[in-house]
């Protein structure tokens, strides 16, 4: 099949069943060269199974995936040569030194012998593992091991990078570093990255695929999807004020959005506002509290959980979406 050369990855009705369970159900999408695409979904949505089929670790029950035009079922080696894959729990050989491991993996992936040293050096530099190349992998911190695994995924200059939950199990500092690293990779590579954390995908990706219960629920550019998700944003405020007066003032500021005021202990009031698209009354709310001398202890926009994202996207009960 002759495919569009600008398309680096084409998933074509990918389906995977384990016994009677359908883990991935008829998933199709395309990724163009230079894109950074996020695959978002809660645990058990079928992200890892989809990525494993793309990486050739699992065979699809039906459908196919093509990497730079090479089918993962008909030309698995050709497809894998063009792919750099970081599995969810990137496991390395603890008895090898980091540099030795990267040279081994480069040779395994067919990097010509004369180029191995240069490629290992470049990948190590990019992933910041140069200082630990001579150390045993078993002695490295989890963050460093993750970077060595990422350097491994890059070492043969793949056309497509597939990263499965690359920040899973890292501490916040390591997560920030990993995110910066992935963003810098994106300048030179096409990347497909999976995550169950919405802000992570929002921060790094151009486009997002949302998977739920094995199905592709939605796909689109991140800003569009974010706008869709944040169309109905909820503002939460805790303030000490007389209830009726508070309700009247806030309703005026909310511009027609639904307002609920509930008393809390010690005269505190909790205000919840369903603001309309594009509306953010937080500065006005803060100014109101200051003007009236009402003590304000909390004012925030509620971040949507993934489940709420699904609600926002489908307008349905997320548990009823897939089937």
């Amino acid at each position, binding site marked *: 099949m002759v495919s569009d050369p600008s398309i680096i990855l084409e998933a074509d009705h990918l389906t995977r069943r384990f016994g009677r369970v359908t883990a991935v159900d008829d998933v199709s999408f395309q990724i163009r060269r230079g894109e950074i695409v996020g695959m978002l979904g809660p645990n058990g949505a079928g992200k890892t199974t989809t990525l494993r089929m793309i990486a050739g*670790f699992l065979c699809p029950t039906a459908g196919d995936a093509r990497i730079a035009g090479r089918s993962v079922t008909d030309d698995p080696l050709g497809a894998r040569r063009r792919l750099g894959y970081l599995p969810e729990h990137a496991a*390395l050989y603890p*008895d*090898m030194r980091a540099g030795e491991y990267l040279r*081994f*993996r480069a040779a*395994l992936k*067919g990097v010509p012998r004369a180029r191995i040293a240069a490629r290992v050096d470049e990948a190590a530099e990019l992933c910041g593992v140069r200082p630990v190349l001579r150390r045993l992998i078993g002695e490295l911190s989890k963050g460093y091991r993750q970077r060595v695994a990422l350097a491994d995924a890059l070492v043969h200059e793949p056309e497509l990078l597939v990263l499965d939950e690359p920040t899973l199990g890292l501490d916040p500092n390591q997560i920030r570093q990993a995110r910066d690293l992935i963003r810098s990779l994106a300048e030179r590579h096409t990347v497909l990255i999976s995550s169950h954390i919405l802000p992570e995908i929002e921060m790094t990706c151009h486009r997002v695929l949302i998977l739920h219960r094995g199905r592709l629920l939605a796909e689109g550019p991140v800003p569009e999807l974010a706008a869709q998700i944040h169309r109905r944003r909820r503002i939460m405020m805790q303030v000490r004020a007389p209830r009726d007066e508070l309700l009247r003032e806030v309703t005026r500021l909310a511009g027609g959005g639904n307002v609920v005021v509930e008393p809390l202990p010690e005269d505190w009031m909790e205000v919840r506002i369903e603001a309309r698209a594009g509306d953010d009354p937080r500065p006005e709310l803060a100014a109101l509290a200051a003007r009236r001398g009402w003590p304000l202890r909390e004012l925030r926009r509620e971040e949507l959980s993934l489940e709420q994202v699904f609600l926002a996207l489908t307008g349905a009960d997320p548990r009823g979406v897939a089937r």
Partner: protein
Amino acid sequence: MNGGLPLLRRELNACLLSPTAYLVAALFLLVAGAGFWVAVASLAAQPDGSVGLVELSAWMFLLTIAAAAPLLTMRLFAEEYRSGTFETLMTAPVRPAAVVFAKYAAALLWYLAMLAPTLLWGPILSAVAALPPPTDPAAIAGAYVGAILIGAWCLALGLFASAVMRSQVAAGLLAVALIAGWLFAGWVPFLWPLRHGDRLGTWLSPVVHLADWSRGIFDSRAAVVYLVNTTLALFATDRVLEWRRWR
């Protein structure tokens, strides 16, 4: 084979760094050496009493290899499954056959390295005991060919068991069961009266094969059986790896 050489180098390094491999080699040499000592001592006491001695030595060797082969092979795939490196390995652009080849070749090379010191036993014996070393070249060559063929077959069974089982211990137990099954299959026709039972037994029994070879009688039919069986076991291992993509 694509990727075969780097994989083989990696497997050999892993073997050289594994304490188990050295322990197995030491125990193997100790037991085989003791067997050799017993054989020499009983021949010295009764120079014409060699009837049955060759069979006894063959049994000693077979039981030693039946214990050594599972210990050498049980970790080869089971450890990759346990640690998760199997996924990294199988998503590299290499065929499962290359992985099987590399792991098998490394185990076989270690086994040959374990056998090598026994070549010194003849010269050591003549130096220590002023006895003439065993000089029948056909018998010596036959014994080594037999040890290599049977060892190669047992290692292939062990590798297969390691590919099937997710835990090292289970892989080791399965390998022991497979090897024991094969060892005792040679007895069945002798025990179970059939019309041509003893002839069938002679064809199946590794003890008969090994005893014949170490007397210098080289029956190529038995050699072909071991080579074919080994190839089949390796092919089955390759299929197990492929099956894991579909399971």
